[in-house]
């Protein structure tokens, strides 16, 4: 099993990002996804800053992949995407079909992130023919759903040509909107957002009126209110999943990575936090539910 760190989904100051990746370089993570995937207005780091971090991580023995935006709306969004897709030093993670189009036109290999809709083996097969080397399924899919895709006869002879990745830890990205909900929470429109996401390194919690932690708002992205945690399901992933993705949190991400590795064979289970964690999607029920594994 390989372990990956997903892109930082929140908006952190540049120094904090650089400090985080210094620790990542010393960690035993295998794959690191880098870049801004949520909002094009978040520019604490420029493309050259990301490439510098990528180079440092590469030298530290990590496999690096540049993640790209999920919701692209303007010609300038596309122009920025193109700059990532045109560089040849690092593999790119496509989070929208536009990136798949740009990368496959150039015959470049790529990874597909969980924001791209791919629900069946025929779609996986199509993406393989376009150059996909790694696929992270949509977060709402279950273990059973994934197993059926991976074992489909259509992919039998192609299973060695791509890796299967699962989003296994952190608040899950669930939706993308034109509207910035963080700016809205401060009574401002997206145009006047003042980049306020930077004030919320873990997003802002949305509670129901009876105090249920429903969602986290993170700019234009709506996330699960609870952290997804498949730490106790790693053993069942053997044979189906090649890469386990942890999504960077504001604290203890690398500690969690160690915990995951320690429990890879199920020998060091850690009970989920009753009030803050969930694993329902993996068991084909409501995502917010916690199923005893």
């Amino acid at each position, binding site marked *: 099993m390989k372990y990956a760190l997903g892109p930082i989904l929140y908006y952190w100051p540049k120094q904090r990002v650089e400090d985080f990746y210094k620790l990542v370089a010393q960690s035993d993570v295998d794959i690191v996804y880098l870049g801004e995937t949520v909002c094009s207005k978040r520019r604490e780091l420029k493309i050259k800053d990301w490439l510098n971090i990528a180079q440092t991580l590469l030298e530290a023995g990590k496999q690096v992949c540049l993640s790209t935006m*999920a*919701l*692209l*709306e*303007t*010609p300038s*969004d*596309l122009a920025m995407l193109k700059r990532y897709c045109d560089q040849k030093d690092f593999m790119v993670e496509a989070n*929208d*079909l*536009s*990136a*798949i*189009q740009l990368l496959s036109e150039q015959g470049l290999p790529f990874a597909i992130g969980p924001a791209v*809709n*791919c*629900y*069946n*083996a*025929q*779609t996986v*097969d*199509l993406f393989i023919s376009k150059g996909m080397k790694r696929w992270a399924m*949509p*977060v*709402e899919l279950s273990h059973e*759903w994934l197993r*059926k*895709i991976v074992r*489909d006869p259509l992919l039998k002879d192609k299973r060695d040509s791509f890796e299967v990745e699962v989003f296994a830890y952190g608040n*899950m990205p*669930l*939706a*993308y*909107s*034109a*509207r*910035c*909900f963080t700016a*809205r*929470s401060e009574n401002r*429109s997206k*145009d006047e957002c003042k980049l306020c996401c930077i004030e919320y390194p873990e997003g*802002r919690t*949305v*509670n*129901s*009126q*009876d105090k*249920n932690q*429903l*969602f986290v*708002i993170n700019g234009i992205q*709506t996330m*699960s209110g609870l952290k997804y945690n498949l730490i106790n399901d790693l053993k069942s992933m053997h044979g189906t999943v090649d890469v386990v993705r942890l999504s960077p949190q504001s604290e203890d991400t690398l500690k969690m990575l160690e915990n995951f590795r320690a429990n890879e064979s199920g020998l060091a289970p850690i009970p989920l936090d009753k009030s803050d964690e969930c694993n329902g*999607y993996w068991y*084909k029920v*409501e*995502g*917010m539910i916690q199923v005893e594994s």
Partner: protein
Amino acid sequence: MELLCPAGSLASLKAAVDAGADAVYIGFKDETNARHFAGLNFTERQLEKGIAYLRQHNCRLHVAINTFAHPDGMARWQASVDKAVAIGADVLIIADLAVLNYCAKTYPDVEIHASVQASVTNAAAINFFVDNFNVKRVVLPRVLSIHQVRQLARVSPAEIEVFAYGSLCIMAEGRCYLSSYLTGESPNTAGACSPAKFVEYKETDTGLETHLNGILIDKFTDDEKAGYPTLCKGRFDVGGELYHALEEPTSLNSMEMLPQLMQMGISAIKIEGRQRSPAYVSQVTTSWRHAIDACKANPDNFKPSVETEQCLSNLSEGSQTTLGAYHKKWK
């Protein structure tokens, strides 16, 4: 500019045609349809009658196969494509790439539109659909501003269709899993958002509560009109403030932008609402037919009439309408 209206039933189909629709869109009574609601959609016999009615009135038929094929279910989605072609649909509206691929390869002459659920929001993504599946038109998600729609229309190799009126989905359609997070069922996997079987209305001492799968979505005082608990339209608490954290219960109404939409060459405008009544479909279609005709005749001086605005406002969710993302300030 095509006026494309919803037909969740035979009665709605006739209502749309009678009120001046250029085309209607329908779905089958199964999971391949993103409006797979109890009591909606067509039996075989109703379908035959509906098609005959459309042909008589020279009206086009679009069939929406707009959910994502399950891993062991591709045969069912392919069967829906086969059936749509067999009944003589003029257009197939498809979301799943594998279903698009099947349709394009099996029926190269059939007109295909990329469904709004396919989440196509930019030029490179449109190119993907045109290059791979020869898609003739894309339906844009309700996330772009009018300026962004114009930019896209200018460079798009495919026709552009936009939503004009109806329930407002505020997320990029096809990429929203909020419903499955709370209920286990999403538009992509089960063909419905915030499905009715999870809805509960509870009378309490402090007001009427609406729940979705046990989650409190909103609470209404006696003088407030309780809306359907669509999960993104509830009142929630963020940082100690209680408000519609994601969106108010409101409908999209873009009628005042009609001259701009026409000028930028938008091929079709879509009315949302296959789950609505025939009377609703009739009133909305009538309003838009008049508006399109008036705008075509005199685009420089077009303004929706007060009666039309009033009618559309009364028909909408929470009796409120918005320009949604078309208007930059909304974002």
